[in-house]
């Protein structure tokens, strides 16, 4: 139906919510990428089949998507976060979370839990430290330490259903905003202290205000969903898992700044996000939430999706705007800010997905509420993708200011195989590496910047002692080398040379004095490049140099990679004292370079060894050593 007044909307939401409450049991099957790849669809089918046979009064939802008929490829959906132990099945209202569910187990769930109300112990999450099984999702340490605002609805509601969003109170903030003056809306956002979640951390309210102040006959609102940092997929999850929230945030922004047209720029690698958002836009148009006279008011606003073409640099605002205009995504110098001269040279507000997703809650709960979460300079919460060599990989959201240690060891559950912690990389390719001494750092914009890294969009990659920091820096520079647009000299040529130097280090070809050369060039690229991408490109080099200089020196002076990663200067050996002769490494070796018999000492044939590290990865006894 098409809503012509806010009251109609409120009535409908109330009806939907009350129907919702009558559902006795709700089974949410996570179909995030991780769970889907691990068999969430088969689990879903098995659940439906078993439930059909049992004629149960319940609702099974493939959360957040309802269209499992589509091919697996497309199901990169917003997830319930805890990818590590998927497929996940969440049963409401009991808040039971089953992990690693298989189709066979699905039938068990129907028979035991849904029909008889019994909890199946062996499907529950087991705390690796205590060995204790935990039934309730909210009591699992991974979830316990989280506070969700941007991810409020992600993985909890069917993403393509406007009704589901309305039932959960969606669009009530928009109705509220329509009763406020634009200045009052902006005031609320300013009061909230919300800062851009895309990386720069610019105050959102102030950005909106300057857009209003800028001269122009037309204004645009752009949502940046070109999430390109490797190891970051928060925005993807939000766009796929809760698209209406993003749209609502944009509509409220349009109302505040007086924009009539909006764009969502979605990364090329996220086809599912595109289809989700498109479906949501269509539903909003039909419901009178987009288009002319939204909810019967004077507000006219419509949103178009613009798909990226696979260019990291398009996450940079000026490049993104060029791309929307149908051009090569080359950044421009931002001496005139895009709030004044942005898309088509008109005043433009550009915020990222997570930023817009925070807006409805801010309008609903008031700015003050948001501000009291987080820290002085960084209000609210922040979504992170916790990945790398951490036990609990997944999508998380924690209040700003949470100590890094609580994130890595609390939510994250520590390092895989209890190896020593070495570093956390934050901020993607533009960010930096933090070392052990930073573990007690409160995670917020300013603290991370002060420590030589940055918030970035929220990727958090945990590294253990088997990660080589020279290799990590080289990896990021390789990434940036391929992603640099090639327009300005410091970025195009500078990154090439930085990468070439790191390449030489990894091969053991570094020379004394190279570090100074590396450092100087890195600093010059930092100040000399045209856009934010180029200016931040040397960060991985500079931050690893600062915190792990000894590793660089080992590569250059001793021609050794302490972590045993850089193949050219590493030799894999088996420690005779530790090897138990379990044959695991023999099975893992792709080149059959390891020989040995059961319960006898194994040996590596150096001629055949490609130094891939597979043996070390599988060895349970730490018997594979590198020199």
């Amino acid at each position, binding site marked *: 139906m098409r809503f012509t007044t806010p009251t109609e909307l409120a009535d409908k939401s109330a009806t939907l919510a009350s129907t919702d409450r009558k559902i006795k049991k709700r089974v949410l099957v996570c179909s995030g990428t991780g769970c889907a790849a691990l068999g969430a669809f088969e689990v879903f089918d098995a659940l439906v089949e078993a439930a059909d046979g049992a004629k149960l009064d319940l609702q099974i939802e493939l959360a957040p998507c309802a269209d499992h008929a589509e091919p697996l490829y497309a199901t990169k959906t917003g997830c319930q976060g805890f990818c590590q132990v998927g497929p996940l099945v969440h049963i409401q209202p009991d808040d039971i979370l089953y992990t690693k569910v298989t189709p066979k187990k699905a039938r068990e769930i129907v028979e035991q839990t849904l029909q008889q109300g019994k909890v199946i112990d062996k499907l529950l999450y087991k705390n690796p430290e205590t060995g204790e099984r935990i039934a309730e999702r909210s009591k699992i340490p991974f979830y316990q330490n989280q506070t969700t605002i941007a991810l409020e609805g992600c993985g909890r509601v069917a993403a393509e259903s406007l009704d589901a969003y309305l039932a959960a109170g969606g669009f009530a903030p928009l109705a509220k905003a329509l009763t406020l003056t634009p200045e009052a809306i902006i005031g609320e956002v300013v009061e909230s202290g919300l800062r851009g979640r895309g990386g720069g951390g610019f105050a959102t309210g102030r950005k909106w205000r300057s857009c209003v102040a800028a001269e122009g006959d037309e204004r645009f609102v752009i949502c940046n969903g070109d999430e390109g940092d490797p190891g970051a997929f928060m925005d993807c999850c939000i766009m796929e898992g809760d698209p209406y929230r993003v749209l609502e945030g944009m509509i409220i922004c349009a109302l505040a700044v007086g924009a009539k047209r909006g764009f969502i720029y979605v990364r090329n690698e996220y086809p599912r996000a595109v289809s989700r958002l498109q479906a949501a836009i269509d539903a909003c148009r039909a419901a009178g939430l987009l288009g002319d006279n939204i909810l019967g008011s004077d507000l006219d606003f419509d949103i178009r999706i613009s798909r990226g073409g696979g260019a990291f640099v398009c996450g940079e605002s000026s490049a993104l705007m060029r791309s929307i205009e149908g051009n090569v995504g080359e950044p421009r110098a931002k001496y005139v800010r895009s709030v004044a001269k942005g898309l088509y040279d008109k005043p433009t507000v550009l915020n990222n997905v997570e930023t817009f997703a925070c807006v409805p809650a801010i309008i609903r709960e008031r700015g003050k509420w948001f501000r009291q979460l987080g820290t002085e300079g960084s209000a609210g919460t922040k979504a992170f993708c916790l990945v790398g060599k951490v036990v609990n990989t997944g999508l998380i959201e924690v209040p700003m200011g949470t100590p890094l240690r609580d994130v890595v060891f609390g939510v994250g559950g520590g390092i895989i195989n209890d190896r020593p912690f070495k570093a956390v990389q934050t901020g993607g390719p533009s960010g930096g590496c933090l070392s052990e001494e930073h573990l007690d750092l409160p995670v917020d914009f300013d603290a991370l910047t002060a420590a030589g890294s940055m918030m970035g969009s929220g990727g958090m990659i945990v590294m253990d002692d088997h990660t080589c920091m020279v290799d990590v820096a080289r990896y990021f520079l390789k990434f940036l080398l391929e*992603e640099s647009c090639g327009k*300005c000299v410091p970025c195009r040529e500078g990154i*090439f040379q930085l990468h070439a130097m790191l390449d030489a280090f990894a091969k053991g070809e570094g020379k004394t004095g190279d570090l100074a050369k590396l450092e100087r060039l890195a600093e010059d690229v930092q100040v*000399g490049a*045209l856009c934010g991408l180029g200016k931040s490109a040397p960060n991985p080099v500079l931050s690893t140099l600062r915190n792990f200089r000894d590793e660089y020196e080992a590569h250059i002076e001793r021609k050794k990679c302490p972590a045993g990663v850089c193949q050219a200067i590493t030799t894999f050996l088996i420690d005779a004292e530790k090897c138990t002769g379990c044959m695991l490494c023999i099975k893992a070796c792709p080149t059959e370079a390891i020989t040995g018999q059961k319960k006898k000492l194994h040996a590596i044939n150096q001629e055949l060894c490609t130094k891939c590290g597979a043996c070390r990865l599988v060895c349970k006894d730490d018997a594979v050593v590198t020199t």
Partner: protein
Amino acid sequence: MTQILIDNRKFNAEEGETILEVARRNQIDIPTLCHHEALEAVGACRLCTVEITGEDWNGSTKLVSACLYPVEEGLIVQTRSEGVLRLRQTVLDLLMARCPESTVIRDLATQHGQVTEYQQFTDGSKCIMCYLCVRACAKLGCHAISAVNRGTLKEVAPPFHEHAESCVGCGTCATICPTGHIEMVDTAETRTIWKREFEFVTCKVCGEPLITKAYRDYALENRRLPNDYYTVCSACKKSELSGHFARLSL
């Protein structure tokens, strides 16, 4: 009208002017490679980087490209600060490594005191990706060449790296190229550029090559000039007309 300070001297500037414009007008030398007054500034070479600050900046400074930075009241610009000189040198060092064959770049680099040697490219290219040719070609409305690919692989090329279809052989790209990277070979009858061969219009009096036929056709269509202007060379025009004028003045 605003006032800015460049290298401790006060200058008046119009709103919307760039630092480079004000500096050049007042004979302050800021080196550039990708800048051209008639073409849109791109800020690619970064050679024109200058250091700016303001009275209320609490001593903080910023390096910006002079060709793009619009002046603002009270702006304080240093064109030869330590940071500026260091960056300029690095930019030139990097370009030297990119196109070691270019004498223009080598001279410039030496002039700025080349210090660091980087891994040299060996493809023999002299292109520094200043985009001057691409912008000039677009300015003429031909769009025969463009900057293709990205990153280190970025290069100027015609579509599909084949012969440039919409090229008219005007030679502007070769003329404007600061390093002489663009190859253009002229004979008495033909011009070869971008894998294409163009036939010249020759002077109907002396037979000297004038412009390419394609360029003539382009100019006729886009510049609305009578055909005969193109068929005689300048010297022959003058020679023919001198007789004509002599008769008139009798």
